[in-house]
C-alpha cells in the first residue's frame, strides 16, 4: 500500500494522522529534514549530526501522540527536541567551534587589492567569531543559533525554549554584543 499524497496536509494534520498510521510521519520527516539538519550539523558538525538528527525525528515520532497543536506548531516542537539533544553534546559543540577558530590562524591574506581583501575577510573573521561562539553561555547560544541557523522567529524561539517573548530579544541583544566585541571594529553583520 502506498500512502496517498501528503502535500496538501498541514503539519498538525500529518502528526494526527501518523498516530494511527505511523508511515504518515515520513512526510513530516521529509518536510523538516533539511532544516533540522542544517541546525544540528551547524552546531555539532556533520558526524554527530547524523545521530542527533535521526534521534530528533525518532523522539518526535515516539512522542507524536502527545503533540498538542494548540500549544504551538510542529517546527518549534522539532527544534526544541533537537536543541535538548544538542545540549547533551555540549563538548562536541565547543570542540567544533574551537576547531573552526583554529582554521586560518596562520593564514596570510596576502593579496593587496581590495577585491582580494573583501573575499578573504569572511575567512579572517572566522577565528574570532568561532571562538566567541564557543565562549557564549548555553542559553545565549541556543537563542543565537535558533535565529541564525534555524531561522526561527522570536516567537518560535520563545516557544522552543519555553521562555517569555521579551527574554528572546534581550538574550539575542546580549549575545550579539558579545559576538561583535570579538570581531574587529567596523565589521558589520553576523
Amino acid at each position, binding site marked *: 500500500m502506498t500512502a496517498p499524497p501528503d502535500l496538501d496536509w498541514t503539519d498538525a494534520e500529518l502528526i494526527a494522522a501518523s498516530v494511527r498510521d505511523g508511515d504518515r510521519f515520513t512526510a513530516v520527516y521529509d518536510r523538516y529534514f533539511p532544516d533540522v539538519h542544517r541546525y544540528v550539523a551547524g552546531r555539532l558538525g556533520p558526524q554527530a549530526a547524523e545521530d542527533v538528527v535521526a534521534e530528533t525525528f525518532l523522539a518526535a*515520532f515516539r512522542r507524536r501522540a502527545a503533540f498538542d497543536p494548540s500549544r504551538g506548531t510542529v517546527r518549534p516542537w522539532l527544534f526544541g527536541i533537537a536543541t535538548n539533544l544538542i545540549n547533551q553534546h555540549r563538548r562536541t559543540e565547543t570542540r567544533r567551534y574551537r576547531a573552526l577558530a583554529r582554521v586560518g590562524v596562520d593564514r596570510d591574506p596576502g593579496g593587496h587589492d581590495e577585491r582580494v581583501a573583501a573575499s578573504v575577510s569572511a575567512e579572517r573573521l572566522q577565528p574570532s*567569531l568561532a571562538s566567541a561562539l564557543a565562549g557564549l553561555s548555553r542559553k545565549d547560544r541556543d537563542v543565537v543559533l535558533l535565529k541564525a541557523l534555524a531561522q526561527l522567529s522570536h516567537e518560535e524561539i520563545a516557544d522552543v525554549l519555553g521562555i517569555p517573548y521579551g527574554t528572546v530579544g534581550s538574550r539575542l541583544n546580549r549575545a550579539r554584543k558579545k559576538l561583535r566585541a570579538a570581531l574587529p571594529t567596523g565589521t558589520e553583520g553576523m
Partner: protein
Amino acid sequence: MIATMLDEPPTQESEDAVRHRVLNGMRAPQRPERRAWRRPALWSGLGLTATAAAVTGAVVLSSGTTPRAPDPGAAGPQPMTAKTVLLTAATKAEGAPAGHGRYWSSVIREGGYVVSDSGQHYTVREIGSWDAGPGKDAWVAERVVSSRYTGPAPAGGPSPSGGPVNSPNRGPVTRPGPGKWTKSKVKGGEAFRLADWEGTDPPDVRRLPADPQALRRFLNRTLPDHADPAEWLMSNAQKVGAAPVKPRVLAAMYRLLAAAPGLRGVGAVTDPLGRRGEGVARRVRADGTVLDERLVIDPATGRLLAQESVLVTPGKAWAGRKPGTVVSYDALVSCGWTDKVPAYPVEKAG
C-alpha cells in the same frame, strides 16, 4: 555570517543513512528510549551499506560483516524506494546552477520500434534544439544514429507505447553507422512550451510553479478531467527535464512524483547511453500488454537521464519480444544554456 561559517550540507550518504535509520526506527517495535539511543551506530553502518549497494548494484554483506542481530528492515541490499530516489533527486536538482546563454539547447537520443508500411525497424535518432525563445531564432537538428530492420509489421497494429514518430525509412534497410547531422531554422519558442499537452494549450514552461503544491494545483487546473497528474508527470518527466525550467521546478516535479502512488524503486540501472542511475518505475497496462514506464535519474546531480518503456508482458502488440526489452526510450544527451549553435549543414527546405 554565522550561518555561512557553520554550514555543513549533508552528503548523499549521510542523508540516505539518516533517512534509513529514521524509517527503520519508526517501523521497529517501540522500545525504551535508552536502548533506542544506543542503536544508531549499528544502523548507521547498515544504512550506508545498503545505499552503497543500491548505487553500485553490487551484492554485499558477506556473513562475516553482517551484524549479529540485524534489524529486519535494514538487512540486505534493497533498492532505494522511489520516494527516496525522487526526494534525493529533488534536493540535488534544486542546487543545480541555472546557467545562462542565448539559446536553450537540448539533445535527446530517442530509440524504439518504429512501424512503417515496409515493416518494423528499431531506429535510434538524435534530435537537437537551440531555441532563443518566442519571437527569436531557433534551430533544430537531427541525425539517424542507427536503424535496424527487425521484421514485418506485427498484425496488432502500431505500437501501443506511442514510441518515436514515424520514420521515413522505406524498405527493409539496415543502416550500419550514424548518419550526418543536418539543421534547419524554425520559429523560436517551441522549446519553451510543453507540446502534446493532452489537447490543451501548451503552457510556457517558464511559468510552471516552483512549489510542489502550486504545481499540483496548476496541473489539476490545466489538465483535462480524465488525466491523472501522476501519470501525466511520469510520461512528461523527460520533457520537463529537458526544458528550460528553473531548477526548482524540476525539484517540484520530483517532489510531486515522490508523493504519487504506484511508483517503485528498481535500484541501479544503466540508461541507453550506458550511464548509471537510479530507476523509478510505474507499471501500465493496455490490452494484455504490460509495460514499466521507467525514469533513470543520476543520483549525483538529480538530472533526469532517460525515460524508458520496458516490456513486462508482451501481449499481442509486442508478440515475440522478450520481457525486459526497452521498446522505446528518450535519453537526454545534453541540455543547458549556450551562445552557440553547432555548424551543421543546413537542410534545404522542401
